[in-house]
């Protein structure tokens, strides 16, 4: 009698677990896919938005240089080729779930991009004071913020500062206003920061310009 009851419990347990197994199948597949979509969408935006912006700026510059400084036009074209090729690699890598963004790498690219857009760049020369587990994330922040400066700010100067738990990108351009579009760049960064337990602030700067600051909670 006891054994039979136990057996029935075992059996009932089976049914419950089986049902749970099916529910789980559905639900997890759905959750994982949604999360993955968001992640890929974000990576894509960050990685390609940046390269493509750099390409279009440099192509415009090279076009102007062709008649007056052909050898500089050639140099810009070499960089465009490199950017396009590495963007193709990024597309491949994103599709395969691999990505390598480093803060140092992003600062180097930022300098080149700001230079060709005619924006004076004041950038840190080292990243060692930044905590290691924040460098990739801050790399994404620099990438998006600098892309925005080039695309939207009409700035004459851009300055980047770093601390152990934070990074700040400031420009002296026209500044955000109520009519600023809501793109996916800043929203994506905000998502990344929130996920990492930090926060992103985007503010007007006095007397003019914009400042983007990303901050992580102090390391445990």
């Amino acid at each position, binding site marked *: 009698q006891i054994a039979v009851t136990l057996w029935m419990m075992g059996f009932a347990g089976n049914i419950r677990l089986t049902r749970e197994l099916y529910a789980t199948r559905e639900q997890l597949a759905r959750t994982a896919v949604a999360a993955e979509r968001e992640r890929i969408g974000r990576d894509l935006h960050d990685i390609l938005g940046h390269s493509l912006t750099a390409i279009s700026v440099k192509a415009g510059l090279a076009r102007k240089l062709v008649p007056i400084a052909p050898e500089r036009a050639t140099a810009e074209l070499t960089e465009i*080729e490199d950017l*396009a*090729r590495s963007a*193709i690699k990024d597309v*491949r890598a994103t599709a*395969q779930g691999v990505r390598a963004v480093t803060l140092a790498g992003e600062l180097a690219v930022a300098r080149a991009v700001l230079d060709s857009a005619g924006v004076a760049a004041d950038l840190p020369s080292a990243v060692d004071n930044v905590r290691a587990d924040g460098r990739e994330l801050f790399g994404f922040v620099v990438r998006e913020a600098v892309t925005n400066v080039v695309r939207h700010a009409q700035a004459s100067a851009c300055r980047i500062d770093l601390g152990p738990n934070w990074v700040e990108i400031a420009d002296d351009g026209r500044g955000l206003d109520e009519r600023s579009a809501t793109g996916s760049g800043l929203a994506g960064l905000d998502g990344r920061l929130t996920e990492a337990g930090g926060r992103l602030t985007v503010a007007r700067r006095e007397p003019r310009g914009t400042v983007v600051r990303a901050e992580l909670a102090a390391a445990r």
Partner: protein
Amino acid sequence: MSTPIRVLLADDQALIRGALAALLELEPDLQVVASVGTGDDAVAFAVELQPDVALLDVQMPGLDGLSATAAIRAQVPTCRVLIVTTFGRPGYLRRALEAGASGLLVKDASPDLLADAVRRVHSGLRVIDPELAAESMTVGASPLSGR
């Protein structure tokens, strides 16, 4: 200089086809004899023009580059084939070699590398982009086949 290497070019994307043709034409030892947008045209023109090298895109409407390779190799054995693609897809390398291609290269290879690949294929050498090869062998490994 001896007679130029005669090249047939096939890519369905007109922008890329045009730029590739212009690039190859800049090389004094290369001559683009036909530039077409489908695999079927590639085969027809290869038969008619007997080029030395056919540079074929993989994804094209109708006959794709891999099937066109097999057809060209069968009907114009003297024509060597170099396949170009943007992405390595599973099985590309194996299928390219099985179809009789001499090379597989990324389309965004630098102009000098591309021209050089055409020359090397023409002289009987094999040109295989290592990154593309790795991709075409690993990318498609089924997620279901347990690791």
